[in-house]
């Protein structure tokens, strides 16, 4: 009995440690962001000059300072441009997805129309295609519409993504059929049924799509890289790596600031995140 308790405690500790290791990168970023320029250079000089010695680090900086925060927030307008680019892109995509995907999910869930299964499979396939395969097709359309090198080039294809259709579809599936029939008999039009019955009951799925979507699009790399040439249109996720190693203090601060919205969404939407992950298990 004693052995079992010790075993259990050992497993628990091991798992906690592993979890902590997984979260450790954030600690690096936080401690780095308040390190003075001098200390950072001392610690990371070897990395910057490709030297022979190892780099060092102290999690509690000797001379903590907010100078980098100050510089980036008050003296670097590019940072704000880039930050709001990211915000704009993400919110436009999420809003667009809401308008496009939610009715589509409703159609799949509630109406047994003729090509339903076939179309659903097509949506699954599209959802699972990596960006690189559809990259050329997207480029051809965007070029044809002459919206290359604008934010619309990134927003529009993402708005029509089939992934949120699934997440919301699961929410709609739980709607009791009888309720819909009763509403119809009472003379409600299909639109009314959708708005009054469907939307409230699928709010969980919609929130899951929002949380997963935010985390995905806040971190977008491939699409802006391919479709946005003008650097003033770049989102935060592309700006960060551009900061050279000499300016590594900025890098840390910019990373921390990039993290904040993502972590906020993660923490407040964790329950929906999990629901969304489970729902994305393609079962019909």
């Amino acid at each position: 009995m004693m052995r079992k308790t010790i075993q259990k405690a050992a497993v628990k500790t091991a798992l906690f440690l592993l979890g902590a290791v997984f979260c450790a990168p954030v600690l690096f970023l936080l401690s780095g962001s308040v390190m003075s320029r001098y200390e950072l250079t001392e610690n990371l000089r070897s990395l910057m000059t490709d030297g022979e010695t190892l780099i060092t680090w102290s999690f509690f900086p000797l001379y903590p300072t907010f100078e980098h925060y100050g510089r980036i927030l008050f003296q670097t307008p590019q940072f704000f441009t880039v930050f709001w680019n990211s915000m704009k892109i993400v919110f436009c995509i999420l809003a667009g997805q809401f308008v496009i995907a939610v009715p589509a999910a409703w159609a799949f869930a509630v109406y047994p129309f003729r090509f339903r299964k076939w179309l659903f499979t097509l949506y699954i396939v599209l959802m699972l295609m990596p960006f690189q395969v559809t990259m050329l097709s997207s480029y051809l359309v965007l070029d044809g519409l002459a919206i290359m090198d604008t934010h619309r080039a990134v927003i529009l294809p993402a708005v029509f993504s089939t992934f949120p259709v699934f997440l919301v579809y699961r929410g709609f599936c739980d709607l009791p059929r009888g309720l819909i029939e009763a509403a119809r008999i009472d003379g409600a039009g299909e639109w009314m049924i959708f708005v009054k019955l469907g939307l409230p009951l699928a709010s969980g799925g919609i929130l899951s799509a929002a949380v997963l979507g935010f985390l995905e699009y806040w971190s977008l790399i491939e699409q802006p890289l391919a479709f946005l040439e003008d650097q003033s249109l770049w989102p935060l996720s592309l700006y960060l790596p551009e900061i050279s190693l000499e300016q590594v203090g900025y890098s840390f601060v910019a990373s921390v600031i990039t993290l904040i919205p993502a972590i906020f969404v993660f923490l407040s939407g964790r329950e929906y995140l999990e629901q969304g992950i489970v729902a994305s298990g393609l079962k019909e």
Partner: protein
Amino acid sequence: MQKTGLQRFLKKRPSIWQSKYAFFWFLLPSLAGVTVFVLVPFLDVVRRSFVTAVTQEWTGLRNYQIVFANQAFRLAVKNTVRFTFVCLPLLIGIGLFLSVQLSRLKEMQLIKSMFLFPLAMPAATVVLIWKMLFSRQGFLNGILLKTGFVEDGLLPDYMGTGAAFWVLVFSYIWKNLGYTIVLWLAGIFSVSADLTEAAKVDGATERQCFWRVIFPNLKGSLYTITVLSFLNSFKVFREAYLVAGSYPHESMYLLQHLFNNWFVNLELDKMAAAAVCVGMLLFAAILFLQRLWDHEEHI
């Protein structure tokens, strides 16, 4: 006399929102977007795979031949396949193992969140940390030096050698372990507690409980996790590109790098042929998995 609901319903004049074709209007925006942005352009891509890039003359299968003979393409395919076949089992196996351990703990929710955390970290923020860990002067070498696994003077730069592949694997597992665990746990807990209770009453050990009772019911989860992990394995390009650029070390050069470089160099004919190939292959693989899965479901 009271009219029945049915009679009242039949009396109403049909509008588009009341006909049985209402579904069409709900589906239309999504379907239109998908058609315009994906389906129709893909047909053009197929066309382009049969013509030259600039002059658009018909060249038949020549683009396909060029692509298949292309060294970079072969390397990229080899690496991508190798990556997939290494990562997926690792991720799925480790995920399952950890989930089983977690399922018995009270602190399951908290630890689950800790594993999910990497999902919230944008690739761009992590890249700096990876550099600090894996370059020649990095912390990994520091730890190895202290524990005596490497000698001073022989410190490898992980990003610049064959070990770059394993850095990528590590990055992938770090990012995706969280949701794998969520999915496994969902599968484990969907097995009715009565079954495990009954097994325990019959004297089964924890281990037997798992392998005989729970595991057989996890097939559905296994398919889901495999497909999703496969999809996410393509996303590892983000970290790879940010850390090592467009032309990284050989062992890290993936299909995505190749497509990206072709795109930048406007070698659209090769890209079209390759996109058609890879697209068709993935399409077939997904359909095959779907068929397999549906078959399982109906047993």
